[in-house]
């Protein structure tokens, strides 16, 4: 299992568009992908659940990838989430 912490820098947090982008990336990989936010564990393959988490700017998010291609998945997600603008 791989873990990475990132801080959301985007002013408006994770809104509809970035939420769907994150789940699009997560769905490309066979491994399980979760986001840990405010002690909640969210399935990152569900745009609905990411949106419902209401992730605001400056929030710390931990990305968890577990399974096949976990290295690639975490790398791509980390880069995407860091650079949401």
């Amino acid at each position: 299992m791989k873990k990475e912490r990132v801080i959301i820098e985007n002013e408006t947090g994770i809104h509809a568009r970035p939420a769907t982008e994150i789940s699009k990336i997560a769905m490309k990989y066979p491994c399980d992908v979760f986001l840990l936010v405010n002690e909640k564990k969210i399935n990152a393959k569900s745009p609905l659940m990411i949106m419902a988490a209401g992730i605001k700017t400056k929030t710390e998010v931990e990305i968890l990838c577990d399974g096949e291609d976990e290295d690639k998945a975490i790398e791509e997600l980390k880069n995407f989430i860091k650079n949401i603008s």
Partner: protein
Amino acid sequence: MLKGVGISDGIGLGKVVLLKNEEIKPEKVRIEDVELEKKILYNAIHLVEKETEELVNQLSGTEKEIIQAYLMILQDPTLVQSSIEIIKQEKCNAAYATEKGFNSIIQMFEEMDDPYMAARSRDIADMKKKVIAKILNKKEINLAQLPKDSILVTKELTTSDTAKLNLKNIAGIVTEIGGINSHMAIMARTYEIPAIVGIKQVMQLMSDNDFVAINGTTGEIFVNPSKEEYMKLERLKENLKLEKGQLEKYKSQLSVTKDGHHVEVLANIGNVKDIELVINNTAEGVRFI
């Protein structure tokens, strides 16, 4: 005169088109065949997905992205799963399970303290309505072919309905439900279509082909106005046009305060195609949210 809340400026003059979208409240029916109801639900969702995909193909720019995001939410397994669980646990019909399952997610969004996210709950309510309509085999009106200068009057103009509209034919929008952050409001402002929300029982207050004059700035609506009222609004419409024309001359000037402080004026764009609007309106740059 009726008074609501103006959410998109301007004067609209035209004829009423009532868009009747009655809310269907499915009854709970006990069933034996859980697999059959699951199949009915998946089938209905699949049909709505297919229609939405067709819509995506016809759209471009920001609208296309919005409907694509809408499609992804519709395809989110979490959404269907909530209804599937209800079919299994309560041994009930697919229509009722959709109502209850989608409602639990709608509620989750409504309770969020972020007004933008709270507004997304209406998108999910829109999907729920479409899925239930498919399960119960109900037909919908063709929104792409409304007559010119239509004032669209409806309880709520949903995201997917807004995307289907031929906006060139819409002179104004009046609804009972809707907020400043709804997709309808955003599109109305982008396309400079006057819009008013918050008119209670709006469907009972107007009839098809009533002539109406609306003021999207003040929220005023005149149904079958007198000649004086009509003339007044028509003049106002002309004046707004003139005013806008006069503002054009500032477009090319730098935005500097009296004490010489330069304030950057940027545009929020949806995609590369919007660059044309940015250049025409001489914004100094763009931001992408």
